[in-house]
């Protein structure tokens, strides 16, 4: 029994979910992204770190087909993202607060996203119930528009919306920034649970090395658009990253 689950894990692990092939992005003459090859297996919790301007958000935006690469292509579950939109049915994301609709309340926003992801009102209700602790009573029933919430609370709403509708791929850009310590810890727990049964692939970018080493089993370091490190997380990883960044 144990062996068979291990086998399944191994099989799943071997399957590639996201594949980045020879991708580059140029704005005028400036090249902001240049990745020869990057493969993210199904169920991996993938961390992306790098200083400002390293190309983290550009890479995520390219994966989401919000920005076109100058060369190369990205496939998500064997679907090339800029050729078919099928990947959108199993991929969800939160990049920044422009992903929120400012004039809606949190409830209305979740209902809208739920509608798009095939959830009815009851589904949305029971889904949100799991996040009571994460919301800490600051999101639901507040009679406030999303635009009037604090940055941290906006982020909470956005992250939870990105988990709606059983996505297979979740992309979160800087999810820990602006969150209070308690919420950061709760978010780490949520991400770990999400990848536990190796079904959901989670991609996270962060400036916080300790958080990202804690939740991600693999960490890729970007610098000026290039992959400079690709590490399977081990107890030594945090030290290694700190040494790398303390230049």
């Amino acid at each position, binding site marked *: 029994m144990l062996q068979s689950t291990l086998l399944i894990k191994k099989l799943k692990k071997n399957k590639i979910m996201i594949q980045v092939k020879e991708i580059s992005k140029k704005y005028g003459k400036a090249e902001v992204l240049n990745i020869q090859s990057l493969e993210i297996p199904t169920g991996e919790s993938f961390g992306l770190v790098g200083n400002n301007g390293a190309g983290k958000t550009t890479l995520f935006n390219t994966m989401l*087909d*919000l*920005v076109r690469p100058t060369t190369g292509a990205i496939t998500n579950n064997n679907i090339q993202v800029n050729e078919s939109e099928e990947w*959108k049915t199993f991929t969800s994301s939160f990049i920044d607060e*422009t992903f929120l609709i400012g*004039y809606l309340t949190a409830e*209305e926003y979740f209902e*809208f996203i739920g509608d798009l992801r095939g959830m009815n009102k009851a589904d949305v209700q029971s889904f949100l119930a799991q996040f009571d602790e994460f919301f800490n009573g600051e999101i639901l029933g507040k009679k406030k*528009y999303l635009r*009037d919430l604090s940055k941290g609370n906006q982020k909470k709403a956005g992250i939870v919306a990105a988990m709606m509708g059983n996505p297979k791929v979740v992309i979160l850009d800087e999810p820990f920034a602006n969150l209070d310590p308690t919420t950061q810890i709760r978010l780490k727990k949520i991400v770990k649970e999400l990848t536990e049964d190796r079904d959901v692939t989670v991609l996270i970018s962060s400036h916080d090395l300790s958080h990202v080493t804690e939740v991600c089993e693999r960490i890729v370091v970007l610098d000026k658009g290039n992959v400079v490190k690709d590490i399977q997380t081990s107890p030594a990883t945090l030290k290694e990253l700190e040494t790398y960044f303390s230049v």
Partner: protein
Amino acid sequence: MISHFLRLERKQYFRSSYWQTGIALKVIMVFFALYFLVTFLALGIGSFFIIRKIYPDADPLQVVNSYLVFAFLGDLVFRFLMQKIPIMNIQPLLILPIKKKSIVHFILTKSAFSFFNVMPLFFYLPFSVVLFGEGYNTAGVLGWFFAMIFLTLFNNYVNFLINKNQKIFFSLATVLAGLCAIQYFELYDISAAVGQVFDALYANPIFVFIPFALLLITYNLNFNYLKTRVYLDDAIKKDVKEVKSVDLSWTDRLGEVAPFIKNDIRLIWRNKRPKTVFLLSFLFVAYALIFFTQEVYEEKMPVFLIFASLFVTGGFVMNFGQFIPAWDSAYYKMLMSQNIKYRLFLESKWYLMVGMTFVLYLLSIPYIYFGVDKFLMITAGAIYNIGFNSILLLYAGSFNRKRIDLDKSAFANYQGTSATQFVVIIPILALPMLLFWIFKTTVSFNAGILSIALVGLLTLVFKKYFMNFIERKYIKDKYAAIHAFDQKA
């Protein structure tokens, strides 16, 4: 210190998004500004002679004086609705080593140069110059002129004191309405009575110290009020409105487009600019009254009746439709990363435009009073708006590359405007006018109207085909739109 402030102001002005528009738009804006300037100047210079022509026995200055009380009260009501003290801008200054006193003085002084205070000058100044020319007493005219400036500024500061207090506003509006009624029904001649007060300013210019004192008092009241309140949780607080949710579950009957329709309804109702557009479209229903009540259009320029008829039902289609999809620019990226069918997004806008046009058409039924032919014109216009204009504006929207901030006022707001909005006027308005003109002159009035309705109907019949085409265009232009809507100019 003041030079610092002035430098900041200059940069704020010239670096504002206002100037970062295309050259064509700049030319048009300058043209409009000049037009208003010249109009006001002409009014200022001309009104003296116009009044003398209408009331040959009266002193034009006294006639003007007698209406000033209405002007100032009306000004106050207008200010209440439109003007707000620009206090949010000072937030970054608070933590700098600048005395609060000078910050408050600065914003209060700055407000004196607002549009609302400069505009009246364009009347008072040329009017005073004409008075000089007509041989009025120099000291008297100077006294009167300065009194007008002081009173305008007095209004400026009174408005800040009222500070959006609804009760005071409604009592003010009631007083104004009451005064107008008393004057109109000739219960008491207010204008003459109050006019004498202003006449006294000319007769005894020394009285100018009274408005001046009023100005100083209100300035100081404002100063004292604000000085203790420049805190983030007080005067500089962003007002957060409590949400009033309305049940929109009735839209669920519309099926797949329902989530989008719900959003669009909330978009319109909860944001300043689309809300203004929505409310204005009801005003447009009355637009044709201007044309239908004047025989000259019927006899000589019936084409303009078509122009008016299109506006009766088209206010919403035209003003809302021209900025699709920029209304959703703030979160366009999110929509594009969601599993939505572009078609539904577009269809919901179409439903909205068609639904509103239909409502406006129902409201226009009383136009039958002006004759069945007029109502037929409006009907043809409505069909054209529903069929042709809605589809055309959806198509034109795919060229929109300008972001819109939903919370800015709609008045004189050119944000989101580009060449598209001007080019599109031709098929929206000129085409039906041309069709009508051709068929009316060659065949008959009815043929003219039918031709317009037919274009609308044909587009409606082939809607599916057009929507396919439009959808493809939007998908093709997706990246350009995402990029453009990201630019916060």
